[in-house]
């Protein structure tokens, strides 16, 4: 009964949405307001102004760089939240389900994973560094990197993972994304420009572009590394089993 009422409510909801959808500009029409108002500038000048032939990357880092800074903060917040709820894994008190499982990982699986992981990491690095010319970028590559770490931990257990990536390395790298954004932003302030400006008119033409390239690279690598490490940390914190 209750279910039916909810169903009815949501059906009405959908009809209301549809009434709006009918009025929306037609799907895929180049003449829509969304394609005429702000975006032409991105498409025409984006490559020159943003310094990336992948316009999406250009927007993420330049026009909407502040949003991306918020985005890396969100994922950092998620990590802090997970740690607030579950605490970090600890060599003394935690073990993993791999270790407690009655069946160990088979030889085939461990060998294949061992062979595969370097290639996944290579792909992640490629995705991070080539974000400006092809699909990809810091976050995408970071997600792949994080997935590789998750993969590794799932097969070889938490203790191996903890030995490979120590806490003293992990903690600074988790903050790397926000900090690299802040550093890039403050470089802008140093040259008397607005926060997150990448082109400094005070410098010579070549130095400007070189500096921008360096800053964008710093941000991309910062996002990539931080995202990967954070995914790994979140996973490890969720996966650990308290040793009794």
């Amino acid at each position, binding site marked *: 009964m209750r*279910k039916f009422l*909810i*169903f009815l409510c*949501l*059906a009405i*909801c*959908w009809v209301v*949405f*549809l009434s709006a*959808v*009918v009025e*929306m500009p*037609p*799907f*895929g*029409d*180049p003449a829509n307001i*969304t*394609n005429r108002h*702000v*975006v032409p500038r*991105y*498409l025409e000048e*984006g*490559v020159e102004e943003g310094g990336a*032939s*992948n*316009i*999406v990357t250009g*927007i*993420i880092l330049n026009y*909407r760089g502040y*949003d*991306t800074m*918020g*985005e*890396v903060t*969100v*994922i950092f*917040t*998620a*990590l802090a*939240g*997970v740690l607030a*709820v*579950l605490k970090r894994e600890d060599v003394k008190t935690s073990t993993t389900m791999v270790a407690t499982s009655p069946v160990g990982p088979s030889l085939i699986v461990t060998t294949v994973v061992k062979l595969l992981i370097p290639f996944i990491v290579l792909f992640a690095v490629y995705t991070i560094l080539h974000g400006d*010319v*092809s*699909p990809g*970028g810091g*976050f995408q590559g970071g997600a792949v990197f994080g997935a590789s770490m998750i993969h590794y931990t799932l097969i070889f257990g938490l203790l191996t993972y903890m030995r490979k990536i120590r806490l003293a390395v992990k903690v600074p790298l988790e903050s790397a994304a926000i900090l690299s954004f802040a550093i890039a932003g403050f470089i802008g302030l140093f040259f008397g420009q607005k926060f997150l400006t990448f082109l400094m008119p005070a410098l010579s033409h070549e130095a400007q572009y070189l500096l921008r390239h360096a800053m964008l690279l710093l941000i991309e690598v910062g996002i990539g590394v931080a995202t990967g490490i954070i995914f790994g940390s*979140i996973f490890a*914190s*969720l996966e650990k089993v308290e040793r009794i």
Partner: protein
Amino acid sequence: MIVQKLGANFNYVIATLLFCIGLFTVITKPNLIKKFMGLNIMEASVFLFIVSVGAVREGSAPIVVKGMEKGVQFVNPLPQALILTGIVVAVSTTALALALMIKLYEQCGTLDADELKGMEE
């Protein structure tokens, strides 16, 4: 007329339908993990909606390749940039929620919303 309009905007129709299906899952399913799958469905549906807003028929991906002639019709890159942020937000929320669920299970031994409500009193 209306049907034609809806047919042209089929992506939005499906996106809003998925939004409602997700919401239905969230509200009616008692299991918390299932509720969260519903929420993820909702999230993806909103992303589909926004990406569809930026789509252009026969448009190519917004990546400028050397030697490309002028006047190529690109799709709108802005929604894509927004959704990239959106996906991060979604996975962050999911991670936090799952951590809470593990904690909740440690404390209460169940993930059923009705049983948990009974435990609260």
